[in-house]
């Protein structure tokens, strides 16, 4: 679909949100799904960029991305009124009916979890939101969480009001301070290091952890098989764009 930029905002030098108006197709998006965005009309950059969906309101949807390379840099240069070519929503999202949700986001991993939190809030399902950021530059991400509660956050540099450390340490602190209802699920999205660290958290034994993964993608809709992520049993690959991007932490080999 063609999607027109309605609004652009820089949260920091490296973090940008774009609000776009697309077509009917996007209305059905669910938390954890993503879109594939063509950043210009040329053949370079050649491939689309996968970006999580943060918010949907009718035909309008919001992306939040970190400027990490050429494609995201070009995306951040788009102006209001310009059109982007977008495929989606794609992939399988989070399960939506836990009795209680623990949402663990690292940095830009906030994107699908913000969408999930909004959905849980709307359906009245209780949850806690834990956000980890690397540096004070990412503090503006916290603003998104104002409407949710409880929210805890950590930062790897010392910042007043935040837990000093990474979000997995924050999660451990949180877990050791509460007793969880039956049917609790953990939902996580963040950098590879964070996801790996989650695997080692003893207190999560027995609690299903759904994690949204990133991988290099050729297509985003299942034809190219570029997006392999190993199955836990070593017997082949899941494909992040079709089987995921959300997986049970227990089923993937990281």
């Amino acid at each position, binding site marked *: 679909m063609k999607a027109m930029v309605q609004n652009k905002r820089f949260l920091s030098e490296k973090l940008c949100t774009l609000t776009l108006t697309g077509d009917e197709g996007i209305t059905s998006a669910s938390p954890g799904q993503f879109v594939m965005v063509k950043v210009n009309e040329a053949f370079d950059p050649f*491939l689309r960029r996968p970006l999580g969906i943060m918010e949907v309101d009718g035909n309008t949807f919001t992306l939040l991305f970190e400027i990490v390379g050429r494609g995201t840099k070009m995306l951040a240069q788009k102006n209001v009124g310009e059109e982007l070519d977008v495929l989606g929503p794609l992939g399988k999202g989070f399960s939506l009916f836990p009795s209680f949700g623990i949402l663990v986001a690292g940095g830009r991993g906030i994107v699908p979890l913000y969408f999930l939190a909004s959905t849980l809030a709307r359906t009245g399902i209780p949850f806690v939101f834990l956000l980890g950021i690397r540096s004070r530059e990412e503090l503006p991400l916290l603003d998104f969480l104002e409407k949710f509660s409880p929210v805890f956050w950590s930062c790897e540099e010392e910042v007043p009001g935040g837990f000093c450390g990474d979000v997995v340490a924050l999660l451990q602190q949180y877990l050791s301070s509460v007793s969880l209802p039956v049917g609790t699920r953990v939902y996580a999205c963040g950098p590879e290091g964070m996801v790996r660290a989650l695997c080692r958290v003893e207190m999560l034994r027995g609690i299903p952890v759904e994690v949204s993964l990133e991988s290099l993608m*050729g297509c985003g809709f299942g*034809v*190219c*098989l570029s997006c392999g992520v190993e199955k836990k049993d070593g017997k082949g*690959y899941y494909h992040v764009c079709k089987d995921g991007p959300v997986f049970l932490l227990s089923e993937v080999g990281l």
Partner: protein
Amino acid sequence: MNLAVSLGKMKLSNPVILASGTCGYGKELVSYLDLNQVGALTIKSLSITPWKGNPPPRVRETCGGMMNSIGLENKGVHRFLEEDLPFLETLTTRVFVGIWGKTIKEYVAVAQELEKARRIDAIEVNVSCPNVEKGGATFLEDEETLRRLVAEVRSVTGKFLIVKVGPQVRDWGKVVSIFEKEKVEAISVTNSFPALSVDVEKMDFFFHLKFAGLSGPAIKPLALKMVYELLCVTALPVIGMGGIATASDALEFLLLGARAIGLGSYTLVNPSSALQVLKGLEEYLTRKQIDDINSIIGKVR
């Protein structure tokens, strides 16, 4: 306006084919395009048993194209027949199926399995994959093995037989005479180009196997040269591919004499691009006041 073309005895409603490995097993594309509108789709090359392919990373964007190291991952011919054939049977378009093996025996076994499925119109033998019995060079690089491979597949299949070649070919004349002699019915050219990429941040090869296949618009001028040279030495019908993204790209191949064209990498970027290419072909013919696409095929020699 007539867009129908023929590859020898194989008739296609139009020359636009979805290339192997970039249209999955077909189904994945239904929300993006009406598969009955393309001339044919080519199922990802199948092996006799499921094959898990290469470890990630499997893809890297390059300037004007991409490199892939999928490693021929596929569900195997049996699961394909079970899970996907029923869907393909609902289509009216041509269905080509790619096949590969690590040994000649494996190729033959896949071809035999497919023989039973009447819905499958053609077998495309992907010979650009490593021959494990010959230390990993591709089947294309050893002419005697290539001849045996083609002859043995031919002997077990009555289906329309296509061989898909890549830039590893050393001597077109020899390869073509093998194909002609062994009753290959069409040649697909080209597969991706072996290439290399370095991850400068990690200071390592980007792909585990070092080499990966380069495809996409970047290679189009090289693919065109291959098609041209191939058509200098054979009268077998050629399916031209390599970097096609637009109708104009497709026309370059058709004008050189390719009787059909394959869309590969660009389908990943624009899953409905086959339809845009088709539309562009029609517009071109209208503009040039030509009413049969066959009258432009091979016009530039």
